[in-house]
C-alpha cells in the first residue's frame, strides 16, 4: 500500500468512524511522521462549517431562475393580431358555433373556462359577441363585468398553480422593487418588463404576462390604463411616493452642463441635494429618470456579478482541469 492509499484508509477511519489520529497512524508506523500533519490538516479543514443559505437567499435565487426560464420560453413571441380583429374573428367564430354546432350549451360549458383551456376561445368569443349587440350603457357594464372576470381567472390560475398567458386590469397596491401587487395579484417585474413611465401606487394599469406555478404573475408589459388622463392617477396612502415627481425635475435649467450657472436652482432643494448624495450622477441624469427607481430593478448587486462571469461557453476555457467549455458529465 502506497502512502496515498494509506492516507485514504486513515482518513476514512478518522472522519467516518471517529478513530483517533494516533490510533489510525499505529497501523502505518513507517508513514506516521509524514502523514500525521496531513491528517491534522484534514481534521482542521473537515470542521470548517459553512452555513446553509437563508430562506431569503433561496427565494431570491429561485425567483431569478424562474424569471429567466420564463424569458427563455418567451424568446419566440407568438404573433399578435389587433384587438379589433381578434374580437371580430372570435365573435364570428362563436356565432357560427352557437347557431350551427352546439347552441347555447356550448357557451354555457365555456363559462368556467380559463386561459389555456380549449373552450376559453369560445368564452371570449361569446363575450365579444355580446359587445356587438350592446348599447353604450350595456357596453360599460359588460366591460366592468369582464374586467372582474379576467381578475378572477388569474386568481384561479394562481390557485391551481397553472401556467398561462394572461392580461388583466387593476390598481397598483404595492411597489416593492421587483415585487408589485396589482388588484391583489402578486406581480414580478424584471428588467425585461416593458413599463409605462408614471406608474405608482394607485395607478390603474393593464398587466400582460404569464401566471407561474409559484402563485405569481411574471409581467411582460405593464401599461397605464388611462395614459392620457393624468387626473386619473391618484397617489394614495404614502406621500413619500411623490418624492420623484417628474414635473418638478424636468426643468430645462437642470440640463445645463455647467451647474454653477444655475443660480435659480439654488432655491430648489431637490435639485441641489440629490447630486450631493451621489457624486457620479449629474443633474441631467436625474431629469431623465423621473420614475421611482426602486420599482424597476430587483437586486442591484446581482447584475455586476453576472457581468463578471463569462457565458457558459467560456467557463473552463482557461482552466487546467477541463478542456471543454462546460462540464461534460460523461463518465
Amino acid at each position: 500500500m502506497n502512502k496515498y492509499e494509506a492516507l485514504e484508509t486513515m482518513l476514512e477511519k478518522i472522519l467516518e468512524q471517529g478513530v483517533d489520529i494516533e490510533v489510525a497512524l499505529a497501523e502505518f508506523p513507517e508513514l506516521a511522521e509524514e502523514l500525521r500533519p496531513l491528517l491534522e490538516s484534514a481534521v482542521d479543514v473537515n470542521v470548517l462549517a459553512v452555513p446553509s443559505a437563508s430562506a431569503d437567499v433561496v427565494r431570491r435565487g429561485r425567483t431569478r431562475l424562474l424569471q429567466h426560464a420564463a424569458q427563455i420560453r418567451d424568446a419566440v413571441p407568438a404573433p399578435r393580431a389587433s384587438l379589433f380583429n381578434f374580437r371580430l374573428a372570435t365573435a364570428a367564430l362563436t356565432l357560427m358555433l352557437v347557431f350551427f354546432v352546439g347552441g347555447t350549451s356550448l357557451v354555457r360549458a365555456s363559462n368556467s373556462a380559463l386561459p389555456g383551456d380549449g373552450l376559453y376561445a369560445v368564452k371570449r368569443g361569446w363575450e365579444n359577441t355580446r359587445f356587438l349587440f350592446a348599447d353604450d350603457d350595456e357596453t360599460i357594464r359588460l366591460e366592468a363585468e369582464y374586467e372582474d372576470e379576467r381578475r378572477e381567472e388569474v386568481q384561479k390560475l394562481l390557485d391551481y398553480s397553472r401556467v398561462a398567458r394572461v392580461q388583466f386590469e387593476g390598481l397598483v397596491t404595492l411597489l416593492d422593487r421587483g415585487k408589485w401587487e396589482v388588484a391583489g395579484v402578486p406581480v414580478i417585474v424584471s428588467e425585461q418588463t416593458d413599463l409605462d413611465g408614471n406608474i405608482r401606487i394607485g395607478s390603474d394599469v393593464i398587466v400582460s404576462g404569464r401566471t407561474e406555478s409559484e402563485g405569481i404573475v411574471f409581467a411582460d408589459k405593464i401599461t397605464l390604463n388611462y395614459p392620457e388622463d393624468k387626473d386619473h392617477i391618484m397617489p394614495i396612502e404614502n406621500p413619500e411616493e411623490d418624492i420623484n415627481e417628474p414635473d418638478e425635475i424636468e426643468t430645462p435649467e437642470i440640463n445645463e452642463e455647467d451647474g454653477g450657472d444655475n443660480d435659480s436652482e439654488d432655491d430648489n432643494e431637490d435639485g441641489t441635494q440629490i447630486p450631493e448624495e451621489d457624486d457620479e450622477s449629474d443633474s441631467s441624469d436625474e431629469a431623465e429618470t423621473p420614475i421611482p427607481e426602486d420599482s424597476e430593478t430587483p437586486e442591484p448587486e446581482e447584475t455586476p456579478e453576472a457581468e463578471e462571469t463569462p457565458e457558459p461557453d467560456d467557463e473552463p476555457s482557461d482552466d487546467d482541469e477541463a478542456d471543454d467549455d462546460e462540464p461534460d458529465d460523461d463518465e
Partner: protein
Amino acid sequence: MTSSSERQSELDSLRMLDPQAIGAIYDRYFQDVYRFTLYRLNDEKRAEDIASDVFLRLLEAVKKKRGPKKNIKAWLLSTAAHIITDHHRRHYRRPTAEMPKDLVDQSVSPSQEFERSHQNHLAREALQHLTSEQQTVLTLRFGQGYSLEETAKMMKKKSNAIKALQFRALAALRRQVGEVA
C-alpha cells in the same frame, strides 16, 4: 440519492424547460451549490451570486441543447468550480484579516472558542492559496462529505488520481497554514 430513472426524468423535464421541474431541481441542489461555493470563497454575497448564476447557466446550456447528460448535480458543482476559478482570476485580492462572525460557536468557552475560530480562520485563509484542483478536492471531500468515488466522478478523474491529489492538497494546506500563521 436519486435513482437513474428519476435522474433521467429530471433531465427530460429540464430539457422541456418545465417550470415545475426547474423549481424542483433548484430546490434539490441549490444548497449544495451554495455551500460548495461558500466553502471555497468564504463570502456569503459572492456565494449567493455565483450559486444563482450556476443555475442560470444551466438553463442557458439546456437552451443550446447542451448541459448535463447524466448527472445534474455533478454538472452544477463543476460549473460552480469553474466560475469560482474565474472569479479568483479576475478578482483576486489579499485575504482579509477579519474573522467571519458565523464561525463563532456560543457553546464553548471564550478561550476555546478563540482557539478554534483562529484555527478555522487559518485553515480558511490557507485554503484560498491552493490551486483550483486542490481546493475542489478538499471542498468535495471534507466540505461536502463526498466519498472518494463520488469525488472522482465529479472531477472526472480516477480514484487513484484523487488519492494523490488529496495527499498533495493536504500537504499544501499544511504549508500554507504555516505561512499564514
